[in-house]
C-alpha cells in the first residue's frame, strides 16, 4: 500500500508540474481521495463518474455514496464537482491591491451551479442513483489550479501575491460559498493527501527541570455544551 501511495503521489506531482493542460489525466487520481469529495464517512461508494452527461452539459466528476442520516437511516447522496487542470489560474491581476477570478474559475463556478440545479431537479438523475430527496444531491465544489497558479499577471512580490490570493478566496468563501457548501481545492491538496506517510523525526531534546503548567490562553469547549 505504501508503494502504491508513493507512486500515486509522484505521478500526480509530475502532472501538476507539467506545463501542458493535464485536466483529464489528473481527474483519474480523484478516486484515490474520495473521502475528500464527500462530507460523510462511508464504506460504500456506489458510483463515480467522470463526465456525467446532463442537459446543460457534462458534470466533470460525480460521486455517489451511501450515508447514514441523523435518524440513523441509510440514504444515497450524490456530490458534484467541477474539475479544471492544475495549470489553470484561479485569480488574475485586477489592481495593485486586488485580484479577480479568472475566466476559467468563473466558468467552473457557473458550470457547477448549472449541473447542480439541473441534477437535483431531475427525477431521472435521482432515480438512476436511487436518491430519494433533492437535498441529497450536494454541491461539491471546484478543483482547480495549484500553488504556482494562484494569480496570473501583476508584478506582485511573493507575500503580496499570497495575501491577495488568500483574501480573494476567503471573501468568496465567507460571502458567496458560506451557505452553499461549495469548496475550492487546488491540486496540491490532493498531493498532500496522497503523500507517503513518514514517521515524525524525534528531536531528542528533553527538559532537565519541571515545567510550569500555564493558565490556558485559549477557549475550551466540550461535547457537553
Amino acid at each position, binding site marked *: *500500500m505504501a508503494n502504491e501511495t508513493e507512486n500515486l503521489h509522484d505521478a500526480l506531482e509530475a502532472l501538476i508540474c507539467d506545463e501542458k493542460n493535464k485536466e483529464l489525466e489528473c481527474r483519474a487520481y480523484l478516486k484515490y481521495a474520495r*473521502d*475528500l469529495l464527500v*462530507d*460523510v*464517512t*462511508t*464504506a*460504500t461508494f456506489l458510483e463515480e463518474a467522470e463526465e456525467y452527461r446532463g442537459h446543460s452539459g457534462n458534470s466533470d466528476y460525480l460521486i455517489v455514496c*451511501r*450515508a*447514514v*442520516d*441523523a435518524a*440513523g437511516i*441509510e440514504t444515497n447522496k450524490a456530490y458534484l464537482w467541477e474539475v479544471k487542470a492544475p495549470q489553470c489560474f484561479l485569480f488574475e491581476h485586477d489592481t495593485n*491591491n486586488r485580484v479577480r477570478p479568472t475566466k476559467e474559475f468563473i466558468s467552473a463556478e457557473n458550470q457547477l451551479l448549472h449541473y447542480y440545479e439541473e441534477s437535483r431537479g431531475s427525477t431521472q438523475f435521482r432515480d438512476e442513483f436511487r436518491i430519494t430527496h433533492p437535498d441529497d444531491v450536494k454541491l461539491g465544489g471546484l478543483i482547480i489550479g495549484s500553488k504556482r497558479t494562484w494569480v496570473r499577471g501583476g508584478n506582485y512580490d511573493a507575500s503580496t501575491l*499570497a*495575501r491577495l490570493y*488568500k*483574501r480573494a478566496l*476567503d471573501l468568496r*468563501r*465567507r460571502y458567496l460559498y458560506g451557505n452553499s457548501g461549495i*469548496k475550492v481545492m487546488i491540486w496540491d*491538496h490532493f498531493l*498532500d*493527501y496522497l*503523500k507517503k*506517510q513518514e514517521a*515524525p*523525526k*524525534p*528531536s531528542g*531534546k*528533553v*527538559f532537565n*527541570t*519541571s*515545567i*510550569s*503548567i*500555564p*493558565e*490556558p*490562553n*485559549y*477557549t*475550551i*469547549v*466540550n*461535547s*457537553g*455544551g
Partner: protein
Amino acid sequence: MQDSKYQGTQMSFSPSIEKIRDIVERRLLRVERESKNYFPDILKSSNIHWVSFGNENLLSLFFVTEDDLKRIQSYQSQKYEPFPGLFATDSSLPAAFGFKQSRFGLVSGCSVTNSISFSIGKDSTFVVVDHTQSIDTKELGSISYRIPLGYFISFGDEITPDNAYENLEELIAYSVKAWRESHGK
C-alpha cells in the same frame, strides 16, 4: 497597503460547538457499522466525549474518556491548561516532534516522557492516536495522561479561521482513510 480591518478579523478564534458537533456526527458518529470496525476504540464507546480548544494559533479536537474529562475539568477549575506538556506553539521550546507547514501528519502509539510532545508551527495538520504524555510539573508533580485521539490544525498563511473547519473535516477524513488502509481495505 494592507487592509488592517480585514487582517484584524483573522486574529481571534473560538471553537464553535455546533460546527464541531456537525463534523463529528457526519464523519465519525453517523457511520455504517462496517466503517466503525476500524475506528479507534474511543469512537466505539456508547458515550463519546470530545474537547476542543482554539486561539489565534490553532484549533484542536480531542476525544477523551469519562475519566479524562474529569481530569480536564479538574485542571480547568484550577486554571491549569488541560493537557500540560502536550504541545507548544512557541518554537523556541524543545519538543519531541515538530510540525511546520506539514499537512496530514499521523502520530500513533507514542509515549513522550520529560519533554513537550509537539512543537506546532504554522499551517500544519496532524492526527494523534493513542499517545501518552508524562512530565514533571512544578504544580502537580509527575503527571501522566493518555490521548486516545486528537486532531491539531494550526493557522498560518494558508490555514485560517475562515477555513479551519474545512481543514479539520479533511484531517478527519484523512484519519479514516489511514485506519481503513491499516485494515487492508
